[in-house]
């Protein structure tokens, strides 16, 4: 146990909206729900699925991946075999890019690659120890938990406020600090 002294309890904004967004699931989808049908058709044509892995069965030798968000989400199940590469990236909740081919009646995954987070221009990453130090020292930061309320409410970092993506889209700067030069740190369930 590291020496921890945390008495930071910033009043917490409780969001009552129920929004069904995951975190890793968010990758690979720059504009939410924008023309999902068209994107889907194109991906089908390219034999590539980009989305969030929903599960893998070593017994059945299948991997399932969810493409798209919310109501437009479609989960595809693919078979795999000994020649499939990158199976280590097919873990539940991970963002992945799966290339597949049709063999008879079955779709086979041939290559599985992790979908890595791309940071927007001018945004830098912060690691866990540095963030802990800021929290512990009660530095004047705005810490934002970007997950939906059903994930935020059970367990969040002390002092974090809850602003899921749809809320920030709708309300903009009204839910962020007035001082545009102050430090804001965003986090979610993590993408690896």
């Amino acid at each position, binding site marked *: 146990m590291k020496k921890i002294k945390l008495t930071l309890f910033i009043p917490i904004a*409780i969001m009552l909206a129920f929004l069904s967004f995951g975190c890793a699931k968010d*990758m690979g989808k720059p504009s939410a729900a924008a023309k999902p049908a068209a994107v889907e058709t194109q991906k089908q044509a390219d034999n590539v699925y980009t989305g969030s892995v929903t*599960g893998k069965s070593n017994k059945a030798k*299948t991997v399932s991946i969810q493409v798209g968000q919310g109501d437009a989400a479609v989960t595809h199940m693919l078979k795999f075999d000994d020649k499939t590469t990158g199976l280590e990236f097919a873990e539940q909740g991970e963002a992945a890019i799966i290339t597949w081919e049709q063999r008879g*009646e079955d779709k086979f995954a041939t290559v599985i690659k992790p979908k890595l*987070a*791309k940071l927007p221009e001018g945004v830098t*990453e912060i690691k866990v120890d540095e963030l802990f130090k800021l929290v512990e020292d009660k530095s004047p930061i705005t810490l934002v938990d970007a997950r939906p309320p059903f994930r935020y409410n059970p367990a969040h970092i002390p002092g974090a406020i809850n602003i899921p993506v749809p809320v920030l889209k709708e309300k903009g700067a009204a839910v962020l600090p007035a001082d545009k030069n102050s430090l804001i740190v965003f986090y979610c369930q*993590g993408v690896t």
Partner: protein
Amino acid sequence: MTTENAGLAKKLGYTNVRAFLDGIPAWIKEGYPVYASYEFVAKGNIVLLDLRKDGAAIEGRIPRAVVVPYSTLEKRANDIPRNAPVVLYSDNEEEVLNAYQDLLDDGFKNVSLVPGNYKGWVDWQYGVIVKGPIFSNEIRWVRQLGKGEVSVDEFRKATKGELPDVFVIDARTDEEIAEFGIFTNTVNIPLDEIPKRLNEIPKGKRIFVHCSTGARADLAYHELVKNGYDVKFLLLDITDPECDCEIIKPKLN
């Protein structure tokens, strides 16, 4: 969503935006504490533990809290359901942080703390307390069914043939069924064969699907939803006594 939010903040003109990409899992892995919101402490489907010494809870405690003084936590750990969100509070910050770490070390995955400990709750504007004698220190928790899950009771009825509008699928492999048998009123379609055997699955019926633990059944569930079926899956280790479904044993030859 971290990156999406960070991008939005940049567009709004914020100059000092950073992303904690490793997120909550990395934070918990380091043993750093996470907190529940007060609303969740008040209403969530949780196991709430009061770690204070005997007596303190009689003077006042958070509703639904079970009194487990920290000195007894190790002994009581086996009484805590492993899947339950566990929320802890005390009147001693060091103690509650130690308890948090103890439970993580013991393999608990969903542990969090009450912000500000007991005092934080009392100071919260809606933080009601219960006073008086404590009649039970039993830890009770019932898991709520997740999306797409069927209850064991309803599933069992279907395997007994009591639900004629239900078609039950066993998604395990042929080998597993040859070894362990199959439930009554159940059809075997291994997970990987479901996409090409949809013509064997009636559209007009509700579909229940199971496997050995629920993992493959969950994947089968998504595959069938995609194909327009009204489907639920059983999230249960079928060797669990709770299952109690009749099995047609494999013939020994």
